[in-house]
């Protein structure tokens, strides 16, 4: 399998895991994929189907390829977490520079205005601040990932 496909698959697996999807089938002219995580349930399957129907031809839900009409996907925990979304289009980085430690990690307490990440746009590094105070529950975007306006970056449990 070539590098591109492998990369696509990794992104797909990340996406499925991040959104708590347990089972996923897809068939394209160039690729057929069946993924099943331990503990599959009917509810997860329904969510996967809902996401699939939003896309035109079974595209991998990578960078904004299709705007899914489904409601914002929540994490596996049922509680309503606050999502910090990107205010700009660009590339997400979780640390100030390659190799340096991430700005924040799950479990960290953050304040309003605290820098969570960088979104790079047109060679400018834009520091993205938290709009709530609370605990970082999860980092939704991955370093190096292209993000669009409104794309969820972090889930925070407000205090």
């Amino acid at each position, binding site marked *: 399998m070539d590098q591109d496909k492998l990369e696509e698959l990794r992104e797909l697996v990340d996406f499925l895991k991040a959104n708590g999807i347990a089972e996923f089938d897809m068939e394209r002219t160039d690729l057929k994929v069946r993924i099943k995580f331990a503990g599959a349930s009917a509810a997860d399957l329904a969510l996967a189907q809902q996401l699939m129907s939003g896309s*035109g031809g079974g595209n991998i839900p990578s*960078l904004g*390829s299709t705007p899914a009409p489904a409601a914002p996907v929540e994490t596996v925990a049922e509680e309503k977490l606050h999502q910090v979304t990107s205010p*700009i289009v660009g590339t997400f980085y979780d640390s100030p520079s390659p190799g340096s430690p991430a700005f924040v990690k799950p479990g960290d307490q953050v304040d309003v205005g605290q820098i969570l990440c960088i979104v790079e*746009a*047109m060679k400018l590094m834009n520091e993205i601040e938290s709009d709530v105070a609370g605990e970082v529950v999860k980092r939704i975007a991955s370093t190096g990932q292209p993000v*669009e*306006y409104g*794309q969820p970056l972090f889930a925070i449990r407000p205090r």
Partner: protein
Amino acid sequence: MFRKVLIANRGEIALRVISACREMGIRTVAVYSEADRNSLHVRFADEAICIGPPKSSESYLNVPAVISAAEIADVDAIHPGYGLLSENANFAEVCRASNIKFIGPPPEVTRMMGEKSTARQTMKKAKVPILPGSDGVIATEAEALEWAKTVGYPVMLKAAAGGGGRGMRICRSAAELPALFQQASSEAAGAFGNGDLYMEKFIERPRHIEFQVLADEHGNVLSLGERECSIQRRHQKLIEEAPSLMVTPKLRAELGQTIQRCMKDVGYWNAGTIEFLMDEDGKIYFIEMNTRIQVEHCVTEMVTGIDMVKAQLRIAAGEKLSEIITKPVTVTGHAIECRINAEHPEKFTPSAGKITAFNLPGGMGVRVDTAQYAEGVVPPYYDSLIAKLICHGQDREEAMNRMQRALSQFVVQGIHTTIPLHQKIFEDAEFRAGKFDTKFMERFFERQGHKADATAEDHFSPMQPIRLSGTIHG
């Protein structure tokens, strides 16, 4: 040829460009605001990136957002459509600096032809007739009389320091000029603190005639003939047609040649339209140039058989015009376009909302360019154009009849549209006879007003005086 193109626009023109790209095997990237999440141009693009909230200034007009989207999607080129950023020379420059091909003219040319006075100078040098103007302040009545004598009446006196109709007078003879000169000057002094005036030739009943050009990036230019766009309401075009009944083959050929030479000298690239006014004697005068593809490009496509958007893509990819247009340009038959707006057909108030029924006409010689659909929502943030209905026929008569048939089968429910207005225009004797100018719609509304019965719906409810009763206790 480009591998991937980003379309920096929305609505029907975004879909138009996406369609041309698809036919050419070019991958497409749509950008959209949150209000356009369920748009057709988003759905039919290969990739789509949300670039901002509903307001245009924060999304479609947001240059960093558009460029950033182009970068992360790794596109080769950007097609700007019409409106929005299409004539923004700064945007074209940022594209160039970012190594993204802007599908249009070079920024310097956009700037030059977009600026009214430099455009006029450029055309004047190229011997393209321009609307005579004094190009400077007319200091005295004597100067004014002199200038008016050389140019010919009627003329317009205009305030140099401001606009909006103040300090403006139309003068139709030498006899009335001195008095009007004084009036205009005092009014200007009062409104702008400056009584200086300049003068322009005034055309009473002008016809709006524009010429379409295509230029490659190797110095070759072709005129694709004219369109007539005289049916306008408040300077907004409602109906366009090609060819114009007023343009003879001789004028088409001669003006075409002149324009081709001029655009070559200017170093123009890609698609452009040169707008003229024609006076009652058939003389034409340059008014301005649009350095982009236009809404009404479709009527030219129907009569010439040339796909203009594909031509734009191919030109920007470096192809020569001779490879793109392989036969002499000919005009076949007659085409008319009606702009269908989401507006009340009489009050012209914008009508945003959900479309509950949407049936498009089809059949021989009927084309609809639209990005709307049943259950689609017309958002309140953008212009009101929701569809273009274009009909082609062997002659104007057939095109008109076809349009009437197509309008009668164009069903839109849930919002108001200007379809009923177009239907009335196509029944109008003056329109059918081709006897019109840019004042047509004013006269048309007057005729419509006279036709309305006493029993007709009253659109104007007079204000009832408020009666206050009761005593005020101290």
